[in-house]
């Protein structure tokens, strides 16, 4: 029965006399549609000679014309050399050995050049000092093609010529010298014998000259401690490959601690050999790379660290130290001490506490253990800054005592906490010159900017470690009208030789001792004859007691200096950004932090408990982005407002962390002006500060590439075991091959009976495999940047990253355990029964999404696994992705139509889609948008266009080249010749690439290794990338 209900649409209808209701009955819209407004008034419309028909004609014609014009191919011009340099063959790469020494990163590298353009940095495998090239060094090549570089000398912002510069500065310097005013050279650490000589020449000529060495991130305390003990201002050198027990108190030695470069030695000792591997105990506040790799990580605030180190000293050497530590830290320290004693000369203690006493204590413990890890013969020379000198300088400048200041490689207005004082002082100098590649914070306010060349355009020499020298040579002719600091010094001292000749002369007379300079230049390095240990205060019997006494004092002083008031801040440098001098490098900005996996930002890391107390939160939003609260951070009255907050599992309660190197304001593109400048809090050059944190309003949008932080008990993704089990149990126990049921019989997934596909015969020719050792991988990310450089991977920017549209072909997944260990996670998952209740999976899985307060951490580099039975290949409707018989999964970009089926079907999520055109597009104003930046592109790899899928190719361009070279020479290929960008970038030996059909190859042996497993083996994809099970040394003493 139909009802007579009347439906009304709004309250208005109830009003009987409403004009609106009446009007709506007649009209669709209540208000008049303003057609005239957008059509213009009627008269002009009628007066227009263009009728609708004409308009359509024009549209039709122009469309037709455009499509016709598109059929015509463009005329491409080719311009050969007029005189071709002998060493250049177009299409063939040349390699040059050189050394980077930018004041923060020092490393011997090989530079790959094509047609005279440096395009990639690689490890110099001959180098014995300073490990390999880290992510920043790998990315440094892009700095050469920075479009914001200063292109010539400038005076007060206006371009001048070098001759004018010479004339004016010479005059001014002479005037100042005659007036008896002081000239100050404020430089980075050059560690360069030739530059030191030049500076002393300069001092000789101008008399009243002060040379101040300034490291943005200071290691002054360690230098002072070393100087006091060994009589030489240098840093202790450690070879962690010799260590069986490593105790680190706040030292991120896998990061940038004391110049970094310790990771390759460390990784060597971490791979279990003959049942042995090193044991690493880390006591720290922030979750660092070292902490993430440690076997045992003890969270402790900076003040607790001081006490812990003092206690460690007392437990190892003796003596008593007052002060109380929380029980679990004290226990850990006690155990660490007994393990150190057990290890004896194979033990080592390092500390990152910026305190002379702390550094002395560490040196003393190592001396007591007579640690073999500590290499006294070759101390590290790459940090020489002196905090006291810098402080005096700033005071003197402010007092107007400085006549001229000449800076090179430093940016004090950005990196000094008291930058305002420096700026004030700078105004009082009569002459200020900055040698800089950019009009950065400092250079833009000096009188002169002396345009400096990039290190790939310069000459130079470095003493990396005592007796270990590196040479820097230009790999390209200077792109701009630049002059390096040393050449300017030569001019000012009236010396007509070039810096190259000066170095050559200096080396031939002083360093080489008769060896060939050209050979040293070819190698990029030279190891001098080991000088007999100079009469450093040897610890003879007589003064042992004395030093023990004094170091006991140091330990006691250290313990007493440990005071905590409220929250403690630890400033650190990120693997990607370092001290911030490469902030305009899009590769580094987009490089996700290994731990937080956040790119394009720095942030305050807060522990879960503190976050709760301060009412700070992180949450996910609908588009898959991570959002967080802001906090105001105050140190000694200096406040940084609106610092985004990340809740960091493993952060010691009562401590927060903030990275330096962000918040640059000058000399970089707007997109790169990310984060906040934490140098303002870097007071007295101490990384540990007492701090107060208050929540601020607003929401911060992070660009985080990994939102799922735990493994949810899926132990087959990262297989783990302990050294004990590894040594005592069968492989099937700790690295079992997954089984499936076939006719109710459990059959291993590797069996052909349970395979959907027939196996293709791959025994002929090459078959490439890549092995990744999870024990040797520290998560440093050098491979990520190397992959970027080799494969022209685009940079997509913060907002695209936030939408999970990152393009990294190689990512390093980081997982936290939800229980105390990953093993605990697995057990918890196994024990789920039913949906609800205490052991219910519903609540249980929910809990497992949250990482533990001090979780275990695991890194896993994941790239295309090049499955022999690839799920992506079968779903491509246009056969754009197919399998080669050499094992590589090919991707024909020009064939791809962008359905993205393959990405959906990929169990590893390694395929990347080009949502936009990332090159020559103003919307993505990174290096691929300017002519200069595009010079870094690898000409052997195509730049992908919009709408196609891309992914790791296992560097097929490199394997093909190796094959071709062998064919041309008519020889077989030796093991080790095949490399991918990532495997050659990995100085830790975590990645091994090669041909498994060559049964003698390293990778073929690794494939048979007991630790070998495939990622998600149960899926049956038969990948060509394999992993080596992670083994943790959990043996407690």
């Amino acid at each position, binding site marked *: 029965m139909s009802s007579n209900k009347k439906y009304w649409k709004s309250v208005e209808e109830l009003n009987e006399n409403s004009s609106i209701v009446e009007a709506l009955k007649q009209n669709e819209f209540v208000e008049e549609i303003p057609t005239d407004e957008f059509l213009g008034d009627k008269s002009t419309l009628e007066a227009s000679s263009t009728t609708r028909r004409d308009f359509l004609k024009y549209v039709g014609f122009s469309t037709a014309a455009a499509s016709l014009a598109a059929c015509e191919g463009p005329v491409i011009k080719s311009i050969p050399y007029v005189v*071709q340099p002998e060493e250049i063959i177009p299409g063939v790469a040349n390699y040059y050995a050189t050394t980077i020494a930018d004041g923060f990163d020092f490393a011997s590298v090989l530079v790959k050049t094509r047609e005279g353009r440096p395009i990639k940095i690689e490890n110099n495998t001959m180098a014995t000092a300073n490990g390999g090239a880290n992510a920043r060094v790998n990315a440094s090549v892009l700095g050469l093609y920075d479009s914001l570089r200063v292109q010539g000398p400038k005076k007060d912002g206006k371009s001048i010529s070098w001759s004018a510069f010479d004339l004016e500065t010479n005059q001014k310097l002479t005037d100042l010298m005659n007036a008896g005013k002081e000239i100050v050279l404020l430089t980075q650490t050059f560690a360069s014998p030739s530059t030191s000589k030049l500076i002393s020449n300069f001092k000789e000529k101008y008399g009243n000259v002060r040379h101040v060495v300034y490291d943005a991130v200071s290691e002054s305390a360690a230098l002072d401690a070393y100087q006091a003990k060994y009589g030489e201002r240098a840093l202790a050198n450690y070879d962690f490959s010799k260590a069986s027990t490593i105790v680190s108190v706040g030292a991120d030695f896998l990061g940038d601690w004391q110049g970094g470069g310790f990771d390759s030695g460390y990784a060597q000792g971490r791979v279990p050999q003959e049942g042995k591997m090193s044991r690493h105990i880390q006591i720290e506040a922030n979750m660092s790379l070292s902490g993430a790799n440690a076997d045992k990580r003890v969270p402790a605030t900076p003040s607790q660290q001081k006490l812990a180190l003092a206690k460690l000293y007392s437990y190892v050497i003796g003596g008593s130290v007052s002060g109380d530590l929380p029980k679990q830290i004290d226990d850990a320290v006690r155990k660490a001490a007994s393990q150190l004693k057990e290890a004896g000369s194979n033990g080592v203690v390092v500390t990152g506490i910026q305190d002379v006493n702390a550094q002395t204590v560490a040196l003393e413990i190592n001396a007591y253990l007579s640690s073999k890890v500590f290499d006294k013969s070759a101390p590290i020379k790459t940090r020489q800054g002196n905090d006291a000198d810098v402080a005096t300088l700033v005071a003197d400048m402010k007092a107007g005592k400085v006549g001229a200041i000449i800076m090179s490689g430093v940016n004090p207005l950005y990196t000094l906490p008291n930058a305002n004082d420096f700026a004030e002082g700078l105004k009082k100098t009569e002459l200020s010159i900055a040698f800089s590649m950019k009009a950065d914070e400092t250079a833009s306010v000096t009188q002169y900017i002396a345009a400096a060349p990039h290190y790939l355009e310069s000459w130079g020499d470095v003493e990396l470690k005592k007796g270990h020298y590196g040479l820097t040579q230009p790999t390209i002719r200077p792109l701009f009208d630049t002059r390096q600091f040393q050449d300017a010094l030569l001019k000012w001292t009236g010396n007509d030789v070039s810096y190259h000749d000066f170095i050559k002369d200096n080396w031939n007379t002083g360093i080489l001792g008769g060896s060939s300079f050209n050979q040293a230049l070819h190698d990029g390095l030279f190891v001098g004859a080991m000088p007999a240990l100079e009469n450093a205060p040897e610890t003879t019997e007589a003064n042992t007691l004395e030093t023990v006494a004094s170091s006991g004092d140091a330990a006691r002083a250290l313990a007493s200096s440990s005071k905590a008031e409220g929250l403690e801040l630890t400033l650190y440098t990120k693997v990607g950004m370092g001290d911030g001098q490469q902030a305009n490098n899009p590769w580094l900005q987009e490089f996700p932090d290994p731990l937080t996996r956040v790119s394009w930002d720095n942030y305050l890391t807060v522990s879960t408990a503190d976050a709760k107390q301060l009412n700070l939160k992180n949450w996910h939003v609908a588009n898959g982005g991570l959002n967080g609260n802001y906090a105001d951070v105050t140190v000694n009255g200096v406040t940084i407002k609106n610092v985004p907050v990340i809740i960091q599992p493993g952060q010691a309660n009562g401590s927060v962390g903030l990275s330096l190197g962000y918040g640059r304001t000058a000399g970089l593109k707007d997109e790169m002006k990310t984060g906040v400048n934490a140098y303002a809090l870097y007071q007295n050059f101490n990384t540990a500060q007492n701090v107060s944190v208050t929540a601020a309003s607003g929401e911060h949008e992070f660009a985080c590439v990994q939102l799922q932080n735990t493994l949810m008990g899926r132990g087959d993704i990262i297989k783990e075991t302990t050294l004990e089990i590894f040594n005592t149990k069968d492989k099937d126990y700790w690295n079992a091959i997954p089984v499936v049921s076939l006719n109710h019989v459990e059959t291993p997934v590797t069996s052909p009976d349970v395979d959907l596909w027939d196996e293709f015969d791959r025994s002929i020719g090459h078959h490439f495999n890549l092995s990744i050792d999870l024990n040797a991988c520290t998560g440093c990310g050098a491979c990520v940047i190397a992959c970027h450089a080799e494969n022209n991977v685009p940079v997509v920017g913060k907002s695209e990253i936030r939408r999970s549209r990152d393009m990294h072909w190689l990512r390093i997944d980081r997982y936290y355990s939800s229980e105390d260990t990953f093993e605990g996670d697995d057990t918890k998952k196994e024990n789920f029964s039913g949906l609800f209740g205490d052991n219910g999976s519903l609540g249980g899985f929910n809990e497992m999404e949250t990482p533990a307060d001090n979780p275990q951490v695991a890194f896993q580099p994941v790239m295309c696994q090049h499955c022999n039975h690839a799920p992506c290949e079968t779903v491509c409707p246009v056969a754009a992705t197919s399998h080669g018989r050499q094992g590589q999964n090919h991707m024909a970009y020009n064939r791809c139509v962008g359905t993205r089926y393959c990405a959906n079907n990929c169990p590893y999520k390694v395929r990347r889609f080009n949502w936009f055109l990332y090159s020559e597009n103003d919307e993505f104003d990174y290096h691929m948008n300017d002519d200069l930046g595009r010079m870094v592109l690898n000409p052997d790899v195509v730049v992908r266009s919009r709408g196609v899928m891309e992914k790791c190719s296992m560097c097929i361009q490199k394997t093909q080249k190796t094959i071709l070279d062998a064919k041309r020479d008519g020889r077989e290929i030796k093991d080790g010749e095949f490399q991918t960008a990532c495997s050659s970038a990995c100085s830790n030996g975590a990645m091994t690439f090669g041909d498994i059909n060559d049964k003698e190859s390293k990778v073929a042996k690794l494939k048979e290794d007991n630790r070998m497993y495939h990622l998600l083996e149960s899926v049956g994809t038969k990948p060509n990338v394999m992993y080596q099970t992670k083994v943790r040394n959990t043996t407690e003493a």
Partner: protein
Amino acid sequence: MKKSYQSLEDNSTNNMKQVIHRKLTSKILYLGFVILLTLSTSLQAQDGDPAKGKALFNTNCAACHKLDKPMTGPALRNIEQKLADEQGLDRAWISAWIRNSAAVIKSGDAYANKIFNEHNGTAMTAFPTLEDQDISDILAYTAEVVETPAPGTGTDVGVNPNSTTDNSSSKLILGALALLFGLLAMALVIVRRTLNRFAEAKGVDIATKEKGLPLWKAFVKNQFLVIVTAILFLLASAYFIFGYLSQIGVDQGYMPVQPIHYSHKIHAGDNGIDCKYCHSSARVSKTSGIPSLNVCMNCHKTISEVAPETLAEGNKIGVDYNAEIQKLYAAAGWSDTEQKYTGESNPVKWVRIHNLPDFAYFNHSQHVTVGGIECQTCHGPVEEMEVMYQFSSLTMGWCINCHRETNVKVEDNAYYTKIHEQLSKKYGVDKLTVAQMGGLECGKCHY
């Protein structure tokens, strides 16, 4: 290009006018030459054979000397006469200089030192092996009187009018034939009309056929035929449209005008220079490389002019080869008169002919060195090309076909030994094609 042809016509007409004068002058010159020759032979009784001298000159002297132009050394036309007239130097001095110039300079001879200094202190190579007779042969050659370059242009002019008459006569014949056919057709029409008129006059009834349906109407009425034709039409047009579209971007036969008219025919064909002499990077690199100008200058430092015959041949197609060489000099910054580089180079912007798309990786050394493939296999008869053009289609089908058909050259290459043995056992063949080696996989060329 068009303009240069225009100028060619101008030249030829000028030449035609000049022919008459030239013949006269050449005759006069010839007479004079004969007289001179007899005179000179009588003057120098011991003189040599200019023909032998020419050969000797070309082998020993031509690297640094020309007859009429200074090169590395001074011009040598009539050098003996000149030296005798201007410096009072005799044959003995010349012989001494040729055999060991350094000694003459050392002896303090004024003129020798002057010459030495004028040429930047570059000493002339000593030729101690040259006999007196050889030297007199060479000097005889240098003393020869210049031949008139008339014959070259003469034949050129001679040929042209002939060919035009040929053309016009054939046209004339064709025209006449056409006229004839036209007349015949008209005659036929007239005959028919007259016959019809006769028939009418005689009252003969011409049977007119009853008009049936016109063919097209019948066709339109037949639905089946219409549909079939429509389908056929659509299929055919689809076929042709596809054919047309797949030609887009295929530039086979692309023959752009280059900034310098460079003739591969002269270099690779007539002179037989190996391709890889200039395109040397084809052996080791992915690109064959356009030779840098210093490679050109290796030879062209001494070759500033082409032979008259070559010049004449160039004129036929409207190219002045000597002018093209001058363009090279301008680009390389070489001063022909001063015989040195000015330092003001002007790189040549060649128009690239073979443009593989960015996404296709091609490596020359793989094909040239490893595969031992002749350049001509892909680039066509380059040695016959006056102007270079794209010979092959460079499409993927073209690549693939070749990879299917070509055997890999595995002999004497240790790289292939193992894989060849295994693969030939697997496929049961002795020779392996590129395809069997995996040369059809996408990733081998696309990355």
